[in-house]
């Protein structure tokens, strides 16, 4: 386009909305699959395809536009009811969606597109349409035609006046608008002006139908016209001017005799001499050539792109670094900034004219400042929040594909799609979630015959659920499959020395062993009991996000995987604890409870370790004073006093001994890695209100590093904290 519009930015918007459109198509297609022949669903799919086609054509992505056109033709057959949609059709359409997504990703990243794949799919669709590739060739032909027309008109513009005059013809047009033509916003003057741009125009108004004045309705058009147009334009070009009013008028276009001589005769008869003079002097009208020229250059550049590409590597989707924010959220921010400015100017007043009487007002002002700052913080955080639906949306397709391959029948239930998550968390949780779902399909849910034999319904249910619980987001992957074979896992863990021969573990602890790297890679276990492959990676990813994952499973009934994630990565809900003179922060997410230490219940065990007897269980005790080598006196005193913060890590409970509990507050996490070496057990630091720095404990890492140094010194595996 010749205008200096910022096309890159608009292209980006186009890609974004097209990806959304593809999601809509995919969801719709999968719904069709589930036996829902709702016309609303087809319409949604069709509309999405149509928008993509239109946009792609507009922005010059002809490959996408042409391909989508074929897809749209197939969809149209379904929509208009001339075609019963088959399972194969749906598969083909789903593949097309995939292809479009890949192609757009490639174009977005300015990579080559896989033109061959597109061609083959297009042929497949055309074959289904029963016109074997014909569609495709007409498309190409249209473009060729358009291109040649362009060059024709371009050449025309360069013609000299003589030639121009030679091709002139005088047309007579009888134009009788219907009474209501004006009511569609069509002005005859507009039409005349347009005709004038084609050549020279003589207008003669016919007033026979004008009623007497009293009966004249000003909204109606009573006039007719006889128009004489001297032009080189073709009949079609003239008709095009009347395109909009065809339904609202009677039109007669009388073509002159074919030769110029004939034109001259008519000229003499019907047109005044003046007009003729104007024709001769008039410069060539070249308005029409410009726009088409642009189109052509657009086409040719994209075509170059397409032909250049061979079997290009599958494009990698880049993580988009932009966020679409609703106007409401931005407005809310603006409001708050406005309030802040007011508060600031109010406070400034005190700086200028301070007296002790205004102390209360100053206090109020500061309270206000605090409130607005907090709201501002919350609102800014809110901008980073996106609904998890963008992540969940991929699962209908995934479940459809995988269960199809495995010969299983699975119903996918999604709930809580509107739960909002931090954008970064959302992006990073995608792969672990896919892994968990795959696992459930692969190993959890049984084949129909096994299920029937076990007295279960043939179709298994996989339920993905997201919700907010306190300051956390919880995502559940729940299936009604076979569950985990605890005996096998336990045996394997004993075998590997992960669990002592005498140790008795609860089922939950056994189940959570599947996340252990030592067990995860073992095929035998995963084949027999289901889960296991790569689960340590899943856990590590989730841990990196400051979250945790746990599993509950019952043999023959099913499994529930629960992922807990912090609302955001930058801010943590922390419990401030004091130890000696230092303050530490423990994530509230990991704290189970806090108990007063009763000296009788603290037992020293061999190896210098200490356990605490709590409600029949012995849990290991970690003294923060010892770990961080604080004042020795304090540490001695601690043995029998202080508080025990019980945290949960990897399904096990551990007590952290601290001197005192302080506030609970949100803290902003500052990374230590930029300036210091990464420390096991610390996730960062924060600056407290009084300006001091407090370290933030990374509970799972902290517990692991403690346990492995204190208790499992002989354990063969290394933790990855």
């Amino acid at each position, binding site marked *: *386009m*010749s*205008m200096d*519009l*910022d096309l890159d*930015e*608009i*292209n980006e*918007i*186009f890609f*974004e*909305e097209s990806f959304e459109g593809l999601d809509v198509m995919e969801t719709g297609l999968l719904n069709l699959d589930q036996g829902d022949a709702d016309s609303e669903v087809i319409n949604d799919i069709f*509309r999405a395809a*149509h*928008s993509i*086609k*239109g*946009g792609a*054509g*507009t*922005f010059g992505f002809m490959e996408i*536009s042409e391909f989508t056109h074929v897809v749209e033709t197939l969809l149209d057959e379904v929509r208009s009811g001339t075609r019963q949609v088959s399972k194969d059709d749906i598969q083909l359409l789903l593949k097309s969606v995939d292809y479009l997504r890949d192609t757009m990703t490639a174009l977005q990243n300015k990579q080559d597109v896989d033109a061959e794949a597109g061609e083959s799919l297009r042929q497949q669709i055309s074959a289904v349409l029963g016109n074997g590739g014909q569609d495709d060739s007409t498309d190409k032909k249209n473009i060729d035609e358009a291109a040649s027309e362009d060059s024709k008109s371009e050449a025309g513009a360069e013609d000299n006046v003589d030639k121009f005059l030679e091709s002139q013809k005088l047309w007579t047009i009888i134009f009788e608008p219907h009474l209501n033509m*004006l*009511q*569609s*916003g*069509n*002005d005859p*003057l*507009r039409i005349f*002006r*347009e005709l004038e741009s084609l050549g020279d125009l003589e207008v003669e108004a016919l007033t026979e139908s004008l009623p007497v004045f009293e009966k004249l309705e000003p*909204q109606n058009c009573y006039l007719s016209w006889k128009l004489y147009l001297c032009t080189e334009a073709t009949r079609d070009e003239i008709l095009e001017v009347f*395109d*909009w*009013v*065809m*339904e*609202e008028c009677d039109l007669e276009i009388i073509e002159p005799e074919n030769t110029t001589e004939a034109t001259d005769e008519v000229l003499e008869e019907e047109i005044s001499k003046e007009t003729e003079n104007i024709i001769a002097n008039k410069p060539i009208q070249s*308005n029409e050539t*410009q*726009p088409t020229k*642009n*189109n052509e250059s657009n086409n040719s550049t994209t075509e170059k792109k397409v032909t250049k590409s061979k079997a290009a590597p599958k494009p990698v989707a880049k993580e988009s670094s932009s966020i679409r924010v609703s106007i409401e959220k931005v407005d809310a921010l603006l409001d708050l900034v406005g309030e802040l400015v007011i508060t600031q100017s109010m406070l400034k007043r005190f700086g200028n004219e301070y007296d002790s009487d205004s102390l209360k007002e100053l206090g109020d002002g500061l309270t206000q400042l605090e409130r607005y700052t907090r709201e501002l913080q919350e609102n800014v955080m809110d901008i980073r929040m996106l609904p998890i639906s963008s992540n969940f949306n991929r699962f209908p397709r995934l479940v459809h594909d995988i269960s199809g391959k495995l010969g299983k029948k699975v119903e996918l239930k999604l709930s809580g799609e509107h739960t909002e998550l931090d954008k970064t968390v959302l992006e990073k949780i995608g792969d672990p979630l896919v892994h968990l779902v795959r696992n459930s399909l692969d190993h959890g849910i049984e084949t129909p015959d096994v299920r029937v034999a076990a007295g279960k319904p043939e179709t298994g249910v996989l339920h993905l659920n997201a919700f907010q619980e306190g300051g956390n987001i919880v995502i559940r992957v729940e299936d009604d499959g076979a569950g985990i074979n605890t005996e096998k896992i336990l045996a394997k863990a004993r075998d590997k020395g992960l669990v002592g021969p005498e140790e008795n573990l609860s089922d939950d602890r056994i189940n959570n062993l599947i996340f252990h790297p030592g067990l995860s890679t073992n095929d035998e276990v995963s084949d027999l009991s289901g889960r296991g492959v790569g689960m340590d990676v899943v856990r590590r990813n989730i841990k990196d996000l400051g979250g945790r994952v746990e599993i509950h499973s019952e043999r023959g009934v099913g499994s529930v995987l629960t992922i807990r994630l912090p609302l955001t990565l930058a801010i943590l809900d922390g419990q401030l604890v004091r130890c000696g003179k230092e303050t530490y922060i423990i994530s509230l997410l990991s704290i189970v409870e806090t108990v007063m230490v009763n000296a009788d219940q603290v037992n020293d065990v061999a190896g210098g370790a200490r356990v605490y007897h709590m409600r029949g269980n012995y849990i290991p005790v970690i003294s923060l004073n010892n770990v961080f080598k604080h004042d020795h006196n304090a540490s001695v005193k601690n043995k029998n006093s202080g508080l025990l913060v019980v945290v949960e890590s990897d399904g096990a409970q551990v007590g952290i001994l601290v001197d005192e509990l302080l506030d609970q507050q949100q803290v902003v996490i500052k990374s230590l890695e930029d300036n210091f070496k990464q420390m096991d057990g610390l996730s960062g630091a924060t600056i407290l209100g009084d300006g001091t720095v407090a370290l933030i404990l990374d509970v799972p890492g902290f517990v692991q590093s403690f346990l492995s140094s204190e208790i499992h010194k002989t354990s063969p595996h290394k933790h990855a904290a």
Partner: protein
Amino acid sequence: MAKILAVDDSPSMRKLVSMTLRHGGHDVITADDGVDALEFAKNESVNIVVTDLHMPNMNGIALVRELRNLEHYKYIPILFLTTETSIEMKKEGKSVGATGWIVKPFNSEKLLETVAKVLA
């Protein structure tokens, strides 16, 4: 120079149309769909409406029908900006009172030219 209401459910088209029209010196108000546009139109007049055909909530056809019922929208030019070229669609558009149509692929000069044309 005119005040133009541009209606399209696609953010990219909306942006392209509004940028083009603004570039041409016009005052542009955008709406996401028919419902949005009608809401605006009830309270404010414009010189021209340019609308998409296929939109969720209220499509272009329904929008034009509704707009023509508003006193201050009865005679203004209303154009469809559409990829639809079928005769039926054009007929349907005309039957509810559309002035005309601009067929995509979009071309900024053509849009400005057409707008200039209908601005009596």
